[in-house]
């Protein structure tokens, strides 16, 4: 990147989540201009008398949903970037490692029996970690892991858990449970209400904060094991911490809005193509890019047509061509 572009671009990325969130709060069948949105948003503090409909639309419908999108986008991107460093592998993401599918299985299992979000979260986390553990141990041969083995193991573990999700769908009640599960699996932010997200967002936030704090250590973790160890870090403990933090984020995202694909691969790659390999920059940039990307996609999902489009369809539809463009332009980003 040219030096003259670096500073404006960085400012843009820092501002992007706030700007997109503000714009997207106003978009929808009940339209509000950015100025009106701001007035309504701050009315509890300023005492501005907004229309009750506007208040209801902003605070009960759109704000929770946009908050969720911001956190899910940032979370999945940071988790993706961290997994890539952890495995020294540009293809490692929550999806390719089987973590997302594992978490889906956990969540679906729990949804079958309960609507208690805390239990759904816990089940998703447990199964996500289990999937990651499988992928790690399958891909490890004589103390070494290769990129290709990680990807292959991820595919295997992913399809294993996918099969179990299908099994749950098969036994689910066709009238009530099956449509919910199917729709939820495609990824949707539509079920978000303050009470639904209040449990999940802090978990994502904690995960992101942990990874942001350890962002420089992620550089060292991406080296070979002996090398990392010889730089004075406890590799086993640090790996575990990164795995738990990333899986926590993924599981929490999955249990709130289903499997949203692509973000964990797309955003970290975009960040690397713009800023190089240093995780001190990649992690914060992933937060900015990921959150704003997700808000835009989710707004398109709810406002582009009269009916709601599942969000993972859109991430792929918009993400794939954009990603191809980036790949062709820069020749791909290495770790």
């Amino acid at each position, binding site marked *: 990147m040219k030096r003259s572009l670096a500073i404006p671009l960085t400012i843009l990325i820092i501002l992007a989540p706030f700007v997109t969130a503000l714009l997207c709060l106003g978009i929808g069948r009940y339209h509000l201009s950015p100025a009106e949105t701001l007035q309504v948003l701050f009315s509890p503090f300023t005492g501005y008398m907004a229309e009750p409909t506007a208040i209801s639309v902003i605070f009960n419908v759109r704000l929770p949903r946009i908050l969720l999108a911001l956190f899910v986008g940032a979370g999945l991107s940071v988790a993706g970037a961290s997994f890539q460093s952890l495995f020294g592998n540009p293809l490692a993401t929550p999806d390719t490692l089987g973590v997302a599918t594992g978490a889906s299985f956990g969540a679906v299992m729990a949804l079958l029996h309960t609507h208690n979000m805390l239990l759904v979260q816990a089940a998703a986390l447990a199964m996500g970690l289990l999937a990651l553990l499988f992928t790690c141990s399958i891909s490890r041969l004589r103390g070494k892991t290769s990129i290709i083995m990680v990807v292959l193991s991820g595919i295997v573990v992913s399809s294993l858990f996918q099969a179990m999700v299908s099994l749950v769908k098969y036994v689910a009640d066709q009238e009530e449970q099956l449509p919910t599960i199917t729709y939820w699996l495609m990824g949707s932010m539509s079920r978000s209400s303050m009470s639904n997200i209040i449990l999940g967002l802090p978990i994502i936030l904690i995960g992101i904060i942990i990874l942001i704090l350890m962002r420089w250590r992620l550089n060292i973790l991406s080296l070979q094991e002996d090398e990392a160890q*010889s730089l004075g870090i406890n590799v086993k403990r640090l790996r575990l911490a990164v795995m738990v933090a990333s899986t926590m984020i993924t599981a929490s995202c999955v249990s709130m809005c289903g499997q949203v694909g692509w973000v964990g691969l797309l955003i970290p790659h975009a960040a690397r193509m713009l800023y*190089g390999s240093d995780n001190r920059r990649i992690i914060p940039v992933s937060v900015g890019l990921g959150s704003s990307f997700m808000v835009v996609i989710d707004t398109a999902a709810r406002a582009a047509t009269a009916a709601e489009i599942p969000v993972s369809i859109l991430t792929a539809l918009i993400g794939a061509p954009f990603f191809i463009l980036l790949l062709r332009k820069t020749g791909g980003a290495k770790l």
Partner: protein
Amino acid sequence: MNFSVRKGSFSYGNTPILRDVSFSVDRREVLSVLGPNGVGKTTLLRCMMGLLRWKSGETLIDGTAISRMTHAELWRRIAYVPQSKGTALSYSAAEMVLMGRSARLGLFAQPAAEDRRVAAEAMEQVGIRHLGNKKCSEMSGGELQMVLIARALAAKPQLLVLDEPESNLDFKNQLIILDTIRRLSREQGIAAIVNTHYPAHALKIADKALILNREGQSLYGPAAQVINEENMGRAFSVQVKIQDFLYEQQCFKSVIPIAVIS
């Protein structure tokens, strides 16, 4: 600072690799570990630094067993320069060297201005200041090796451990690496342990030598004494001539392989 190994033994499963290896290095000294390919030179390095566990025996720093030190304590005193092959990471040289500060920073800490200064100083010392922004994946073998040495120096270690630092390099780069190791040990009083399979290189820079044989046995002593035609012949299964060559009042030793002993 004294670094010593006392009767270290190691085996993979039932195959013994190292048997009762003992040696000791003080500051300002260079120890060369010599031996044919696959004899366990890297294994020795990994064992003595605690990256692998000795089956018996121990490693001591100033009389304290390293198994009783914490990670950070140990790696502030020792720095390891692994073989550079397979480092396809696209970190810049500056970023890579900065990682050397890791053992001196807390888990959540970010490197500060002081760390960047020490890293820049380390790059200066090995003459690669100009490579700062170059990506490791785009470097030549010699440049990358220098970056890894600078990274090790950034930790301000008392002992530098290098695994075949000059293999895969051309003439000139070999000479640069060897001179750098020698200079660092003389000028800064750093002790160094260097793996190599070139006896001539060991003769050039080492004060002491440790020769590893196929049977897991080892020979240890002053380099000029231990590296002789007989010992080299036995260790490498090659008939060897060692020749002195005088050039401008400096004695260069060359080790000439004559024939394979079958």
